[in-house]
């Protein structure tokens, strides 16, 4: 919905890019601005240090940092671009980066830096921000973290589940969720099924999204429909909370923090929020690896830094993006945020494999082992905003009983086929 709702917003982006696009040399008075996504106030110290370090390495350059809440970033960024006053570097998610790139709103980073500047990143991470047709790099990877399965050990016990027995398959996870609801009346999980999550669940299950030629949607096969139907049935039988489709991970984290949800499927960084909201629940929480499905891949949303095409200091913006995401800075940030770096060397730091007593420690160690399966599965398709919305709308229609699953998938496929 977010993208759809913001259509009106994108009105003047292109015109503004044309009018305001300039590259200014750094001067004594040069100030650059970078934006981050939902990091304040928790990571104020780290971001201020990052800015200071960049200033120290670039005499004469002042760095201004602005943090923008997740639900406001698209609006504020597009408004700033349209007004010709965007930040010089901005932290956005992969799907938003793709849409901005397709709108022509992002700078081509390889115009400002040689190929070697990008060698430090995991190739599969850099691919997320590389246009598959032209090879243009429109962003650099920053932090990510494969989701983990955190669980409330007390609720497990109440449901007759052994908190020491690892859940190793998706089917076991679903069975545990049912058992929790049946035995305790509390919900077992709030699975990641909102928005376009099924595009990721399909890939995690080894099911294709497109045909081999990428000319038709392939997500409306009986196998795809059966996977969706599994969750629709759980939803209709009240094994999944009603607001799951609306609230996603926010609702899940709140409910888990309230001690009323058996399992939380989320990035380990959100366990910090659980600890902050309800220490008692955090202390009876354990974390384990998210179960791998047939696709042997885990969708891992990747954050990145982009440079708007009409940024005033594009060259410095690119330098900052590379600086913020270099191995050393990524390692520092990952340690404080319970996430992982997207650079190869930093990821090998012993910190990530050193066990500790807390749920966050357990999550980190579990994730380190899963990192090999991590990939941001956001699909590069033309008209991505339209196609993703069509997919999301149809999944919601299926969950709320507006149409059968197969019909919903067929409807989405038709819209995709017209664009592919």
């Amino acid at each position: 919905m977010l993208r759809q709702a913001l259509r009106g917003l994108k009105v003047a982006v292109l015109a503004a890019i044309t009018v305001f696009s300039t590259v200014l040399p750094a001067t004594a008075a040069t100030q650059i601005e970078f934006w981050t996504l939902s990091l304040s106030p928790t990571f104020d110290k780290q971001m201020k240090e990052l800015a200071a370090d960049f200033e120290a390495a670039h005499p004469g350059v002042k760095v201004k940092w602005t943090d923008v809440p997740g639900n406001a970033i698209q609006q504020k960024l597009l408004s700033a671009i349209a007004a010709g006053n965007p930040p010089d570097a901005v932290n956005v998610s992969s799907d938003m980066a793709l849409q901005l790139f397709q709108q022509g709103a992002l700078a081509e980073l390889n115009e400002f830096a040689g190929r070697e500047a990008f060698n430090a990143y995991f190739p599969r991470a850099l691919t997320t921000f590389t246009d598959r047709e032209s090879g243009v790099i429109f962003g650099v990877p920053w932090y990510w973290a494969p989701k983990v399965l955190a669980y409330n050990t007390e609720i497990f016990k109440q449901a007759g589940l052994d908190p020491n027995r690892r859940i190793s398959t998706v089917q076991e996870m679903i069975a545990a969720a049912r058992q929790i609801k049946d035995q305790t009346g509390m919900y077992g999980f709030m699975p990641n099924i909102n928005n376009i999550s099924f595009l990721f669940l399909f890939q995690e299950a080894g099911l294709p999204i497109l045909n081999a030629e990428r000319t038709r949607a392939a997500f409306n096969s009986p196998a795809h429909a059966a996977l969706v139907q599994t969750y629709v049935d759980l939803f209709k039988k009240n094994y999944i909370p009603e607001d799951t489709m609306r609230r996603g991970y926010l609702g899940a984290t709140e409910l888990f923090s309230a001690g009323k949800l058996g399992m939380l499927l989320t990035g380990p960084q959100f366990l910090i929020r659980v600890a902050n909201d309800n220490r008692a629940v955090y202390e009876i929480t354990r974390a384990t690896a998210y179960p791998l499905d047939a696709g042997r891949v885990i969708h891992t949303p990747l954050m990145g830094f982009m440079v708007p095409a009409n940024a005033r200091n594009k060259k410095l913006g690119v330098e900052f993006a590379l600086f913020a995401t270099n191995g050393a800075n990524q390692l520092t940030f990952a340690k404080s945020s319970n996430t992982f770096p997207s650079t190869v060397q930093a990821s090998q730091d012993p910190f990530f494999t050193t066990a500790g007593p807390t749920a966050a420690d357990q999550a980190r160690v579990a994730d380190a082992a899963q990192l090999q399966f991590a990939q941001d599965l956001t699909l590069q398709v033309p008209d991505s905003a339209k196609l993703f919305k069509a997919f999301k709308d149809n999944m919601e229609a299926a969950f709320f009983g507006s149409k059968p699953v197969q019909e919903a998938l067929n409807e989405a496929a038709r819209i995709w086929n017209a664009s592919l």
Partner: protein
Amino acid sequence: MRRAAARAASRAAAALGSLATVAGCLLSATAGVVPAVAAAAPPARLLAVNRAFDPAPPADQPPVVVPVPQRADYPSGTLPLTGLALHVEDDAPAVQQAGRWLQQAIEDRFHDRLDEGRQAGPRQPGANPAVVIGTLADGRLASQARSRGFLATGPWAQPEGYALHVGPDGAFVVGADARGAFYGVQTLIQLLVATPRGPGLRYADIADWPAFPVRMAMIYLDAHSAGINDRLVPILAHYKFNQVLVMADYVRWDSAPNIWNPAGAAKDEARRVAGLIRASGMEPVPLIELLGHAQWLFYGDQNLDLLQDPESPEPYAYDPLNPRTYDVVLPILDEAIEVFRPRYVHIGHDEVRNVVRFPASEAGKRIGFNRIFYDDVLRLYNHLKSRGVGTMMWQDVAFTEATKEIVADLPKDILFTDWHYSPGADFPSVREIRAAGFDVIGASWYRPGNAEEFARSALRDGALGMLQTRWTGYFGNSTLARGQAEQAVAYVRAAASFWRPAAPIPDERAAQRFADAWRPAAWRAVPGHLVDLRPFATRTLVDSDGSGWLGKGPGYDLAPLVEQSREGIVKLGPYTFHVSAAVMTRMNRGVARDLPDQVTIPLHAPAAAVAVLHTTGWPAPAVGQPAGSYTLTYEDGTTLEQPLEYGRNIAAWTDTLLTSLERYPAWRGVTSEGLAVGADVLEISNPHPEKRIASLTVTSDVRWTNPVVLGLTLLDALPPRDSSSPEAIRP
């Protein structure tokens, strides 16, 4: 859907308003050179027609009344308006208003009025027939209704119901109450017809009543909203909404001058809009967003001591544990009550924890969110109750799994608005809220199927009514007309379903109805010429073998448009076109890669306006991106350019939701594969009708998308719209 996202879109669209205006400059005459092709090529074949533009609904088809009445019969025949008198037999303001609206509708369409008076007694043989409007309280009218089979014990004789009859002997509208009479007249207006013998009213016998007692629509109120609201409110009333939720965050309240936003509405404007709503037969309900979504409370970095999370960069929620919070908030509620005189105030309370830490303070954490939330609601409720006003609030925080236990103790006369913005056959939350002892109103948004299906399930589950929300238009209300018009169209769809959930109307009908109401035209046909595009075509409309249209084969083409035409001629809305082939231009994608950047269609004809039936091969990545242009080249060598802006005046054949009222939603169809498709009309007024037009050149922007012309019609005169008068926008 996240309401926060929708709000964000609204704010951002507002921020872009000025740029959009610049980009939207329409025609600017510039000297130019006649393209060689236009001078050399033979002119297109032009087919003269008498009704190139004709806004009157077809007289030979049954009427389409929106909302669809509960019971209606349309015998064949028309009651001529000539000689017809109007008798308004009740002094109630709503009934008097109904009479005025009927007269205005007749004047708008036919430039005529009915003779007015009161019915002196039983109609005498040979006397001119009349339209009689009144209520069941009038014994003579009740008897008249009974004589036509409308018994006062029938289901129509409930609040807001009405009986309507039009026949050779005249017409009457009998409301079960004054509002019923008003709604009956709104139906009567939709029975107006232009026949070859003159204007009239279609014969009808209708017994009608609403399914829900509450049918609410949401609007915005700010310093710039008068132009939109003055147009919109009568349209809402015409489609039988009876309450209006007024987003009133930024009203410049006397008690809080420190947070006055220059773009906020003056208090007098708020009072005026409340009056407008009442004068249109509806009740205003102010929405003051409290607890969360409370940025307005901190405008200009004011009241920062009240922030829930002072460390967050986003001033989003207040701290109920700070006693000064209520020193600020409660006087504002008092002012809202004084201005709107409402039965309810909507206090928001949605998405409270979506943006900032809540509770953020250690004291708050000790108390816990649920308790803080509960106490805040109760504080506001008690204050409103002490003023004799009810409390309305969103359900999404109160009824989450984590918090719902606490709402059990809230006063049961709180009215919850339960928002779900997806289509869905069943929304159990309505039952859950009712089971907890509260009344509930379902709240829908713009997606086709949302209001329709929610209304059905809400009625089944005992909801009190429905609310059609809108999340666009703050501080730049033009987005409702340009950029997110689908939210305007949704009002009409929702109105139909809120009145009679069992009879929803398709989105395309709602789109045409709203577009017609927004830019009404007198019912006079305009002659013109249809252009045969075949000599200039670059693609076929039908793709039977993968070589036509976009090369994707049958099921992904415009065959349904061709099938709708007769020998290539088709009437789409008020416009008639010759539809035979596509003039598609280039873009770097698919089959369009090898097409020409520019195609010139020689015309050598005069025109007061040019109507273009068009689309694009693919969607542009974003609304507002340039799609190309149309250039009119006059025979004297001067030119006129019409820029094409994606979403604003042109859209892809697969983008069927109407996002801008600058294009007319002329045609919607479904391909053999089941793909929803469409095409819109852009009407270009010619500022130099005295000059003959040598040609029209279609130019592609190439980068983002490509214009495709499907039909072209030259109008001999401008469509008879009276856009100069503020009174022009009427149902």
